[in-house]
Protein backbone atom coordinates (compact mmCIF):
# COMPACT_ATOMS: atom_id res chain seq x y z
CA UNK A 1 0.00 0.00 0.00
CA UNK A 2 0.95 3.64 -0.47
CA UNK A 3 1.58 6.19 2.24
CA UNK A 4 1.32 9.80 1.14
CA UNK A 5 4.34 11.85 2.22
CA UNK A 6 4.51 15.15 0.26
CA UNK A 7 7.71 16.43 1.86
CA UNK A 8 10.29 18.59 0.17
CA UNK A 9 13.55 16.69 -0.29
CA UNK A 10 15.53 19.76 0.75
CA UNK A 11 13.44 20.54 3.86
CA UNK A 12 16.18 19.92 6.40
CA UNK A 13 18.74 21.86 4.35
CA UNK A 14 16.24 24.71 3.98
CA UNK A 15 15.60 24.70 7.73
CA UNK A 16 19.35 24.90 8.42
CA UNK A 17 19.73 27.66 5.84
CA UNK A 18 16.86 29.64 7.36
CA UNK A 19 18.43 29.35 10.79
CA UNK A 20 21.72 30.70 9.47
CA UNK A 21 19.91 33.56 7.73
CA UNK A 22 18.03 34.45 10.90
CA UNK A 23 21.20 34.53 13.00
CA UNK A 24 22.90 36.76 10.41
CA UNK A 25 19.83 39.01 10.34
CA UNK A 26 20.10 39.48 14.06
CA UNK A 27 23.61 40.82 13.64
CA UNK A 28 22.76 42.93 10.61
CA UNK A 29 25.04 40.91 8.35
CA UNK A 30 24.29 40.32 4.68
CA UNK A 31 25.63 37.15 3.12
CA UNK A 32 26.27 36.73 -0.60
CA UNK A 33 26.58 33.42 -2.42
CA UNK A 34 28.90 33.90 -5.39
CA UNK A 35 28.39 31.17 -7.98
CA UNK A 36 29.77 30.47 -11.42
CA UNK A 37 31.79 28.01 -13.46
CA UNK A 38 35.34 27.08 -12.60
CA UNK A 39 37.67 29.81 -13.80
CA UNK A 40 35.00 32.42 -14.55
CA UNK A 41 36.86 34.91 -12.34
CA UNK A 42 35.21 34.69 -8.92
CA UNK A 43 38.41 34.85 -6.89
CA UNK A 44 39.90 37.53 -9.14
CA UNK A 45 36.83 39.68 -8.65
CA UNK A 46 36.98 39.26 -4.87
CA UNK A 47 40.66 40.24 -4.84
CA UNK A 48 39.69 43.55 -6.46
CA UNK A 49 36.38 44.03 -4.68
CA UNK A 50 37.48 43.61 -1.07
CA UNK A 51 39.95 46.54 -0.96
CA UNK A 52 37.47 48.65 -2.96
CA UNK A 53 34.56 48.26 -0.56
CA UNK A 54 36.64 48.17 2.63
CA UNK A 55 35.80 51.81 3.38
CA UNK A 56 32.08 51.22 3.09
CA UNK A 57 31.52 47.84 4.75
CA UNK A 58 33.37 45.40 6.98
CA UNK A 59 33.75 42.29 4.93
CA UNK A 60 34.80 38.64 5.28
CA UNK A 61 35.05 35.76 2.86
CA UNK A 62 34.22 32.07 3.08
CA UNK A 63 36.20 30.30 0.39
CA UNK A 64 34.66 27.11 -0.98
CA UNK A 65 37.54 25.67 -2.95
CA UNK A 66 37.34 21.90 -3.34
CA UNK A 67 40.72 20.81 -1.99
CA UNK A 68 43.31 23.52 -2.14
CA UNK A 69 43.89 26.66 -0.10
CA UNK A 70 45.15 28.60 -3.13
CA UNK A 71 42.12 30.89 -3.41
CA UNK A 72 42.06 31.58 0.33
CA UNK A 73 45.72 32.58 0.14
CA UNK A 74 44.99 34.97 -2.73
CA UNK A 75 42.08 36.56 -0.87
CA UNK A 76 43.94 36.90 2.43
CA UNK A 77 46.22 39.47 0.79
CA UNK A 78 43.24 41.83 0.85
CA UNK A 79 43.44 41.92 4.65
CA UNK A 80 39.97 40.68 5.41
CA UNK A 81 39.13 37.58 7.42
CA UNK A 82 38.99 34.58 5.09
CA UNK A 83 38.03 31.06 6.09
CA UNK A 84 38.70 28.10 3.88
CA UNK A 85 35.82 25.62 3.67
CA UNK A 86 37.08 22.13 2.87
CA UNK A 87 34.38 20.41 0.86
CA UNK A 88 36.51 17.26 0.53
CA UNK A 89 35.77 16.88 -3.14
CA UNK A 90 32.07 17.72 -2.84
CA UNK A 91 30.72 19.73 -5.76
CA UNK A 92 28.76 22.29 -3.74
CA UNK A 93 28.43 23.93 -0.31
CA UNK A 94 25.77 23.04 2.25
CA UNK A 95 24.60 24.93 5.35
CA UNK A 96 26.42 22.60 7.77
CA UNK A 97 29.78 23.58 6.30
CA UNK A 98 28.84 27.28 6.19
CA UNK A 99 28.02 27.17 9.89
CA UNK A 100 31.49 25.81 10.66
CA UNK A 101 32.98 28.68 8.69
CA UNK A 102 30.79 31.29 10.39
CA UNK A 103 31.85 29.98 13.82
CA UNK A 104 35.41 31.01 13.00
CA UNK A 105 34.53 34.57 11.92
CA UNK A 106 34.37 37.67 14.15
CA UNK A 107 30.66 38.14 13.41
CA UNK A 108 30.25 41.16 15.66
CA UNK A 109 32.70 43.05 13.48
CA UNK A 110 31.14 42.34 10.10
CA UNK A 111 28.58 43.85 7.72
CA UNK A 112 29.04 41.60 4.72
CA UNK A 113 30.12 38.00 4.15
CA UNK A 114 30.83 36.78 0.65
CA UNK A 115 30.89 33.04 0.04
CA UNK A 116 32.79 31.88 -3.03
CA UNK A 117 30.98 28.69 -3.92
CA UNK A 118 32.60 25.72 -5.62
CA UNK A 119 33.19 26.40 -9.31
CA UNK A 120 30.30 24.55 -10.94
CA UNK A 121 27.21 25.75 -12.78
CA UNK A 122 24.89 22.93 -11.69
CA UNK A 123 25.17 21.68 -8.14
CA UNK A 124 25.75 24.85 -6.04
CA UNK A 125 22.53 26.34 -7.39
CA UNK A 126 20.57 23.49 -5.81
CA UNK A 127 21.52 24.36 -2.24
CA UNK A 128 20.40 27.26 -0.11
CA UNK A 129 23.33 28.02 2.22
CA UNK A 130 21.60 30.72 4.24
CA UNK A 131 22.59 33.57 1.95
CA UNK A 132 20.55 36.72 1.40
CA UNK A 133 21.63 37.25 -2.19
CA UNK A 134 22.91 35.07 -4.97
CA UNK A 135 25.37 36.39 -7.51
CA UNK A 136 25.64 34.41 -10.74
CA UNK A 137 28.84 34.95 -12.68
CA UNK A 138 29.47 34.19 -16.35
CA UNK A 139 32.65 35.04 -18.25
CA UNK A 140 32.50 35.96 -21.92
CA UNK A 141 34.81 33.03 -22.76
CA UNK A 142 32.12 30.57 -21.63
CA UNK A 143 29.58 31.54 -24.27
CA UNK A 144 26.28 33.44 -24.27
CA UNK A 145 24.16 30.27 -24.25
CA UNK A 146 25.03 29.37 -20.65
CA UNK A 147 22.07 31.12 -18.95
CA UNK A 148 19.78 28.81 -20.93
CA UNK A 149 21.85 25.72 -20.21
CA UNK A 150 22.01 26.44 -16.49
CA UNK A 151 18.66 28.08 -15.84
CA UNK A 152 18.56 27.31 -12.14
CA UNK A 153 21.76 29.18 -11.31
CA UNK A 154 21.01 32.16 -13.55
CA UNK A 155 17.26 32.07 -12.91
CA UNK A 156 17.61 32.34 -9.14
CA UNK A 157 20.43 34.88 -9.12
CA UNK A 158 19.69 38.29 -7.57
CA UNK A 159 22.44 39.84 -9.67
CA UNK A 160 24.40 38.57 -12.64
CA UNK A 161 27.97 39.58 -13.41
CA UNK A 162 29.30 39.14 -16.94
CA UNK A 163 33.04 38.91 -16.37
CA UNK A 164 36.21 39.12 -18.47
CA UNK A 165 34.68 41.83 -20.63
CA UNK A 166 38.20 42.78 -21.76
CA UNK A 167 38.20 39.52 -23.75
CA UNK A 168 34.92 40.26 -25.53
CA UNK A 169 36.56 41.23 -28.83
CA UNK A 170 38.47 37.93 -28.97
CA UNK A 171 35.37 35.78 -28.67
CA UNK A 172 32.08 35.33 -30.52
CA UNK A 173 30.20 36.13 -27.31
CA UNK A 174 27.05 38.07 -28.22
CA UNK A 175 26.25 40.43 -25.35
CA UNK A 176 22.72 41.26 -26.56
CA UNK A 177 21.87 37.60 -27.07
CA UNK A 178 23.28 36.83 -23.62
CA UNK A 179 21.05 39.50 -22.08
CA UNK A 180 18.02 38.05 -23.87
CA UNK A 181 18.97 34.56 -22.67
CA UNK A 182 19.29 35.81 -19.11
CA UNK A 183 15.88 37.49 -19.36
CA UNK A 184 14.32 34.23 -20.55
CA UNK A 185 15.12 32.65 -17.21
CA UNK A 186 15.39 35.74 -15.00
CA UNK A 187 13.14 38.77 -15.39
CA UNK A 188 14.58 41.13 -12.83
CA UNK A 189 18.18 40.53 -11.70
CA UNK A 190 20.42 43.50 -12.49
CA UNK A 191 23.19 42.59 -14.95
CA UNK A 192 26.64 44.08 -14.33
CA UNK A 193 29.51 43.97 -16.81
CA UNK A 194 32.98 43.62 -15.32
CA UNK A 195 36.61 43.01 -16.14
CA UNK A 196 39.69 42.65 -14.01
CA UNK A 197 41.15 45.49 -16.10
CA UNK A 198 38.33 47.89 -15.31
CA UNK A 199 37.06 49.79 -12.32
CA UNK A 200 33.88 48.34 -10.91
CA UNK A 201 30.52 49.59 -12.12
CA UNK A 202 29.55 51.99 -9.28
CA UNK A 203 26.03 50.60 -9.21
CA UNK A 204 27.49 47.15 -8.54
CA UNK A 205 29.48 48.53 -5.60
CA UNK A 206 26.31 50.16 -4.28
CA UNK A 207 24.38 46.94 -4.69
CA UNK A 208 26.98 44.96 -2.71
CA UNK A 209 27.59 47.46 0.06
CA UNK A 210 24.09 48.51 1.04
CA UNK A 211 23.97 47.92 4.78
CA UNK A 212 21.37 45.70 6.26
CA UNK A 213 19.16 46.98 9.01
CA UNK A 214 19.65 45.10 12.25
CA UNK A 215 16.61 43.29 13.55
CA UNK A 216 16.39 44.51 17.11
Amino acid sequence: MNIEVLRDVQESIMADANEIRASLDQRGIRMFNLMGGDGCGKTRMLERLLPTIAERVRCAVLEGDITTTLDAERISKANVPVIQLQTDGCCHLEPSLIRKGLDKLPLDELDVIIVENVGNLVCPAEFDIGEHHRIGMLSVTEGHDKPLKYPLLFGQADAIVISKMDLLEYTNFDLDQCTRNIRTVNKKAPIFEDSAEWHFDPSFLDWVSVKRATCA
Partner: protein
Amino acid sequence: MHEFSVARSICNIAIEEARRHCVERVTGICVEVGVMRQVVPELLRTAFDIAAKETILQGAKLEIHDVPVTIKCHDCGQFAASATLQVQCVHCGSTNIEINGGNELMVSSIRVAEEVGHEH
Protein backbone atom coordinates in the same frame (compact mmCIF):
# COMPACT_ATOMS: atom_id res chain seq x y z
CA MET B 1 27.02 15.05 -8.44
CA HIS B 2 24.65 16.60 -5.93
CA GLU B 3 22.53 13.49 -6.56
CA PHE B 4 24.23 11.88 -3.55
CA SER B 5 23.11 14.66 -1.26
CA VAL B 6 19.59 14.47 -2.73
CA ALA B 7 19.54 10.67 -2.30
CA ARG B 8 20.59 10.96 1.33
CA SER B 9 17.78 13.45 2.03
CA ILE B 10 15.24 11.20 0.28
CA CYS B 11 16.33 8.26 2.45
CA ASN B 12 16.12 10.29 5.66
CA ILE B 13 12.58 11.39 4.85
CA ALA B 14 11.45 7.89 3.80
CA ILE B 15 12.90 6.27 6.92
CA GLU B 16 11.30 8.90 9.14
CA GLU B 17 7.90 8.39 7.53
CA ALA B 18 8.20 4.60 7.74
CA ARG B 19 9.01 4.82 11.45
CA ARG B 20 6.15 7.21 12.05
CA HIS B 21 3.81 4.60 10.56
CA CYS B 22 5.56 1.67 12.30
CA VAL B 23 6.60 0.14 9.00
CA GLU B 24 9.43 -2.38 8.89
CA ARG B 25 10.13 -2.41 5.18
CA VAL B 26 9.71 0.09 2.35
CA THR B 27 9.37 -1.33 -1.16
CA GLY B 28 9.09 1.83 -3.21
CA ILE B 29 9.54 5.60 -3.04
CA CYS B 30 7.92 8.13 -5.36
CA VAL B 31 9.71 11.39 -5.95
CA GLU B 32 8.63 14.36 -8.05
CA VAL B 33 11.54 16.04 -9.78
CA GLY B 34 11.10 19.31 -11.67
CA VAL B 35 12.88 19.61 -14.99
CA MET B 36 14.74 22.68 -13.73
CA ARG B 37 16.43 20.76 -10.93
CA GLN B 38 18.97 19.19 -13.27
CA VAL B 39 18.85 15.90 -11.42
CA VAL B 40 20.19 13.04 -13.56
CA PRO B 41 17.76 10.10 -12.97
CA GLU B 42 20.37 7.36 -13.45
CA LEU B 43 22.77 9.05 -11.04
CA LEU B 44 20.00 9.56 -8.51
CA ARG B 45 19.01 5.89 -8.72
CA THR B 46 22.61 4.75 -8.24
CA ALA B 47 23.11 7.17 -5.36
CA PHE B 48 19.84 6.03 -3.80
CA ASP B 49 20.79 2.34 -3.99
CA ILE B 50 24.03 3.13 -2.19
CA ALA B 51 22.39 5.33 0.47
CA ALA B 52 19.62 2.75 1.03
CA LYS B 53 22.01 -0.11 1.76
CA GLU B 54 21.55 -1.77 5.14
CA THR B 55 18.47 0.32 5.95
CA ILE B 56 14.78 -0.54 5.79
CA LEU B 57 14.88 0.97 2.29
CA GLN B 58 17.32 -1.54 0.85
CA GLY B 59 16.03 -2.87 -2.47
CA ALA B 60 13.20 -0.31 -2.63
CA LYS B 61 12.34 0.96 -6.09
CA LEU B 62 12.85 4.66 -6.66
CA GLU B 63 10.15 6.00 -8.96
CA ILE B 64 11.12 9.33 -10.45
CA HIS B 65 8.31 11.45 -11.89
CA ASP B 66 9.40 14.39 -14.03
CA VAL B 67 7.53 17.63 -13.47
CA PRO B 68 7.49 19.75 -16.64
CA VAL B 69 8.17 23.45 -16.96
CA THR B 70 5.60 25.87 -18.28
CA ILE B 71 6.66 28.06 -21.14
CA LYS B 72 4.84 31.30 -21.84
CA CYS B 73 5.43 32.97 -25.17
CA HIS B 74 5.50 36.78 -25.09
CA ASP B 75 4.97 36.99 -28.85
CA CYS B 76 2.06 34.65 -29.64
CA GLY B 77 0.77 34.52 -26.07
CA GLN B 78 0.46 30.74 -26.00
CA PHE B 79 1.53 28.42 -23.23
CA ALA B 80 3.25 25.05 -23.46
CA ALA B 81 4.34 22.42 -20.96
CA SER B 82 7.64 20.81 -21.67
CA ALA B 83 9.50 17.86 -20.17
CA THR B 84 12.78 19.29 -21.41
CA LEU B 85 14.18 22.77 -21.29
CA GLN B 86 13.16 24.77 -24.35
CA VAL B 87 14.74 27.90 -25.70
CA GLN B 88 11.94 28.59 -28.18
CA CYS B 89 8.17 28.76 -28.24
CA VAL B 90 6.92 25.42 -29.61
CA HIS B 91 4.06 27.23 -31.38
CA CYS B 92 5.72 30.15 -33.18
CA GLY B 93 9.44 29.60 -32.65
CA SER B 94 9.94 32.90 -30.79
CA THR B 95 12.78 33.06 -28.28
CA ASN B 96 10.96 35.76 -26.36
CA ILE B 97 9.67 33.29 -23.80
CA GLU B 98 9.32 32.99 -20.06
CA ILE B 99 10.02 29.74 -18.23
CA ASN B 100 8.10 28.97 -15.06
CA GLY B 101 7.82 26.09 -12.60
CA GLY B 102 9.74 22.85 -12.76
CA ASN B 103 11.45 23.50 -9.41
CA GLU B 104 9.80 20.63 -7.56
CA LEU B 105 11.92 18.17 -5.59
CA MET B 106 9.62 16.23 -3.33
CA VAL B 107 9.03 12.80 -1.82
CA SER B 108 5.37 12.30 -2.72
CA SER B 109 4.77 8.83 -1.27
CA ILE B 110 6.32 5.60 -0.06
CA ARG B 111 5.08 2.12 -0.81
CA VAL B 112 5.09 -0.53 1.88
CA ALA B 113 4.36 -4.25 1.85
CA GLU B 114 2.28 -4.45 5.03
CA GLU B 115 -0.95 -2.85 6.14
CA VAL B 116 -0.31 0.29 8.13
CA GLY B 117 -1.50 0.67 11.70
CA HIS B 118 -2.25 3.94 13.43
CA GLU B 119 0.23 6.78 13.68
CA HIS B 120 1.74 7.47 17.07
